[in-house]
């Protein structure tokens, strides 16, 4: 008699994902989907994904989904959650979306203490549009719009979103985690679960920043892109809890 020891979460649909091979979006989708199932809230959840690699997330999360305009997902989440306070609402945003075009919306959703969860996927680059520089792109890192390396004199020093948002008094929980190895993926799942649990408890704004990779955008192999998280990103973007009201 064989026993099922692992199966795909029913929090995900049965369609092939269009994410590039080697990308960690798939892992993060899985973690979120498993969490929603484990917390038994999948059927009362609405996912909001704005523009970026995850724009097609509505195809993958097996719950109600809204596709939003670039950067505006937190505002959409505010309007939705306030009118459906008993439901679970999360946004799934990349670093170009959240840390560039959507800074106003993310800051003010956090500032209002909206009782929503933000899954912030930071891979330090614009993936979907072909690897351009993001506000999170590391100093001296080469991208298609910083071909000589990101110069801090003209582009500034990379923005640290978790550190910044954790300064806002209404925020309930912010943690930065990584996806570069199994141990960190497991820790990431715990953080995601905590964020959604806080939302269920009505504690207010929660965000998990997941350091993620874009091997295509970096122009390296998937394995090298995971090393990049470990060796280049984590030293600049330290992992840990930045705010926790508990």
């Amino acid at each position, binding site marked *: 008699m064989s026993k099922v020891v692992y199966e795909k979460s029913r929090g995900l649909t049965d369609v092939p994902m269009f994410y590039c091979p080697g990308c960690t979006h798939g892992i993060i989708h899985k973690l979120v989907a498993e969490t929603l199932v484990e917390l038994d809230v*999948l*059927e*009362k*959840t*609405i996912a*909001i994904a704005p523009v970026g690699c995850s*724009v*097609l997330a*509505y195809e993958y999360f*097996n*719950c*109600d*989904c*809204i*596709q*939003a*305009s670039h950067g*505006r997902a937190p*505002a*959409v*989440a*505010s*309007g*939705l*959650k*306030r*009118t*459906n306070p008993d*439901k*679970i*609402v999360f946004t799934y945003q990349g670093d170009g979306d959240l840390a560039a075009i959507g800074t*106003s*919306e993310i*800051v*003010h959703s956090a*500032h*209002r203490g909206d009782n929503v969860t933000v899954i912030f996927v930071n891979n330090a680059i614009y993936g979907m549009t072909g690897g351009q520089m993001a506000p999170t792109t590391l100093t001296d890192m080469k991208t298609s719009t910083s071909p000589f390396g990101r110069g801090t004199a003209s582009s500034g020093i990379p923005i640290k979103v978790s550190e910044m948002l954790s300064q806002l008094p209404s925020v309930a929980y912010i943690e930065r985690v990584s996806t570069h190895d199994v141990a960190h993926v497991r820790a990431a799942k715990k953080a995601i679960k905590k964020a959604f649990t806080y939302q269920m408890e009505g504690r207010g704004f929660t965000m998990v920043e997941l350091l993620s990779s874009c091997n295509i955008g970096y122009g390296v192999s998937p394995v090298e892109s995971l090393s990049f998280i470990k060796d280049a990103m984590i030293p600049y973007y330290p992992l840990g809890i930045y705010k926790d009201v508990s």
Partner: protein
Amino acid sequence: MSKKVLMKGNEAMCLAAIMAGCKAYFGYPITPQNEIPEYMSQHMEESGGVFIQAESEIAAINMVYGAAAGGVRAMTSSSSPGIALKQEGISYLVGSDLPCVIVSVSRGGPGLGGILPSQADYFQSTRGGGNGDYYIPVYAPSSVQESVDLTIKSFEIADKYRTPVMVLVDGLLGQMMEPVEIKDYKPTLIEKPWATNGDSGRRKRNIVNSLSLNAEGLEETNLRRFEKYKEILKTEEMVENHVKDGDEMAIVAYGTPSRIVLNAIDILAEQGIKAGLIRPVTLWPFPYSTFANLPSSVKNILVCELSMGQMIEDVRQGVQGKHPIHFYGRTGGVIFSPEEIAKKAAEVAKGGA
């Protein structure tokens, strides 16, 4: 039972929205519409709704997007530069077939312009500034009473056709007080089985989305939306046409300026010049057919707008070259007087303008 109250246009539209079952209002301060967020901050909660003062007009329209996606009647309001900021959101609302009401209290432009009444946002309202193939119904009331009636109607039309609807008033109407009859009204809320309200345990999961990477698929969606527009064009056009057989002139105006034109028409009558007002109430759909079927006595058409002339393009399209068209407008927040219009009309009648 109905009651008569004295109300400012901006506040009356809020009262109407709440009567119509609006459960979510999101706005940002901008003159001359500030009474709207102020009124809503005071009254939304007591009527079982929510109010957020957004961080920007962009955020406000996206909050509307979220609330509308969740299935509730939602509204935002702004004035000219703020409506410009909402255009991206309006395009997304259209692209996702979401109903909502946008109140636009327009002021002089371009740029920051001024804060006094203007009709320079006719193009902005009827042509939009958002991307893509789309229209939205636009109602242009001319009195506080009509602002109430058309705001209520806008919520019904929005739900019926799953489209954003705009109520366009100039700053004059937003700011002035008039007696309004508030009739008993109970909104008929229709089922929204498409709403993403987190109820996928009881039905198939819903998706609100305007993305379509497949060209044929996107074309098909647009064609379907234009079938809906055909129906709107056929059934939702509203116009007040006072032009009678024997009138030698039709004067066209919408919103509060149409009331100034009525005074001008009285002055003209004293001078023996017979003129009648045509007042489009819906700017989209525009009442083109009214202009195609004017009495043969009409020799001239005079279009009066508080702008450099924008609606005149729709009038031209309706008239199809059958009558000469003239224009009189003031801009930047200057309001024309009945005498100015009568003078212009008299010149036109004499063949001099």
